[in-house]
């Protein structure tokens, strides 16, 4: 399902090159729930960005459902992302000018799959317990509610791969449990492969597969 081979990322900075990821190989089977753990600065986000087709690797390849992401052209990769990968970012990531419903429907609309997009978005928001907030702007919702909107958006295109980079680090424990519950339900009920980056070892313990990153490499 997800295969990385010899994946490396080196950032060019003013103080010379910084090797954030060095030759990572990993495999996550379809429908699995994998957790990536590691200290701050170990390179987890850099790895996730390459896996998700958001940041070009310096070397190596990423295959999602058999497609070599980085051999695609930019627009084909964008389309692939829209159809196959859902993201939950580390930070607030809703468009402030759009209502919850439109934010969720956005990936389908951008991909030219507008037919029924809003109905689907509404159903997902209901599922996330946000039926009363369809018309709310992001600024009118709590952090936990916003995060649930983001999860709904990540799932709206029925992705095969769901990537979440520390989706709960800024939330209280109870909300964290709710959010994790939603992600795990997506993984179990929809069969979506879930890759989660977390600091929280207790959360990682719930995963079927734990990938430990240290200093840009995967620990055995």
């Amino acid at each position, binding site marked *: 399902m997800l295969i990385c081979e010899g994946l490396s990322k080196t950032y060019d900075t003013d103080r010379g090159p910084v090797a954030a990821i060095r030759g990572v190989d990993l495999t996550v089977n379809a429908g699995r729930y994998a957790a990536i753990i590691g200290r701050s600065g170990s390179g987890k986000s850099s790895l996730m960005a390459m896996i998700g087709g*958001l940041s070009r690797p310096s070397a190596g390849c990423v295959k999602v459902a058999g497609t070599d992401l980085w051999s695609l052209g930019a627009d084909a990769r*964008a389309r692939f992302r829209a159809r196959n990968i859902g*993201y939950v970012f580390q930070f607030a990531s809703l468009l402030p000018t*759009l209502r919850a419903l439109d934010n969720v429907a956005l990936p389908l609309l951008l991909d*030219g*799959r507008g*037919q029924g997009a809003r109905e689907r978005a509404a159903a997902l928001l209901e599922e996330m317990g946000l039926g009363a907030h369809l018309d709310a702007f992001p600024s009118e919702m709590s952090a936990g509610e916003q995060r649930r909107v983001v999860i709904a958006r990540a799932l709206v295109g029925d992705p095969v791969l769901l990537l979440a980079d520390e989706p709960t680090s800024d939330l209280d424990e109870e909300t964290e449990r709710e959010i994790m519950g939603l992600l795990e339900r997506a993984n179990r009920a929809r069969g979506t492969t879930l890759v989660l980056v977390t600091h929280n070892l207790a959360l990682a313990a719930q995963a079927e597969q734990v990938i430990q990153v240290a200093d840009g490499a995967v620990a055995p």
Partner: protein
Amino acid sequence: MADASGARLLLARLALQNLGRRRIRTGLLVAAVALSSAIAFAGAVIMRSIESSMSVGFSRLGADLMVVPLDALTHLTAALLVVEPSDSTLPADLLATGKAPGIARAAPQRVLRTDRSGIGTHGESVDLIGFDPLDDFTVQPWITERLPGAMGPRDVIVGSARTARLGTELVLFGTPFRVYGKLSATGVGTHERGIFLSSNSLLALAPAIQTQTGTLPPMLRPDRVSGFLLQLAPGARELQVRFALLSHHPQIKVVAGGSLLTGIRQGLSALLSGAVVLVALMFGSTAVMVGVLFSAIVSERRAELGLLKAIGARRGQIIGLTVLEAMMATAAGGVFGVVAGALLLRLFERSLVFHLTQMGVPFLWLDRLDMALSAGLCLVAAALVGMVGAFIPSLRASRREPYDLVRGDG
């Protein structure tokens, strides 16, 4: 595909909403473009109106040179429309024999100033101007109203100050004439009250004039005229023609007036092309300003643009969103600009044009189609300014990897 248009609609909505996020900034951008468009639109219309008015004016001013008897008085501001009345005359065939080279057209005129014509109360002095409708190129261009059909032997044309209506009867020395046409204001008082008729009709009045006045005015003899109006052939030099004329006919005076007008015409066309360059520069600098503004806007929003890319927006959509936002603002500026320009034109009409018309200088507005075309051109230019200005910043953003944009560095 209905779905693709759905995506475009969404981008248009996003662009519009983005404009609404910073009302003051958007307002300033719209105002800046509106200012340029207003100046461009009003300027273009006024310039082109002046240009066409001038060219009409110049064609009306027809004559480059006037040939009159040596002792005739000349009135330079008469703009070489008609020969001044005087009792001195020239032979009618003066220019027929050995016609000087460099002359394109020569129009003979007979001008009689009389207070016995029978017009008005006793003693009204009237200039009767006899011209040859076929050779004439100075009188007929001034006609503003005329009856249908060609001018006949019993027809007269009256100056603008005369109140006689078209088609009414006018009796000259006992002979009834029909008011066939009316001249527009020439700015020369004697012409405003003049009565213009064909030379032959004027000559036909000679017996009646002789019985009424007791003498036969010299220009009413078939072989004499008051003078000639000349138009130079293209490329002919005024000085050479004048010299050639004077060397053959020592008894004449040659009056010029054209060179000044030619100078004005050349100066005006230089001014016009200068204005065109200025307008282009103005739009260019507005485009640069839009570019600066939008590279700031793009960097302010790079996290959002990165997010859009992450969830599937393609490069064209990123560029489209940003360029559309800029074009909406600048096109709106263009619309406001054209409206403001139209108000400026109204103001101009009430002030300067009004005075010009009062002074007898014709001012012809650009016709509606050309005016609409100018407005359309301004709108297109305004929209282009947004497109060109926002293109480079959005192109650069569209090339970045989503993760770099989202992280917000660089």
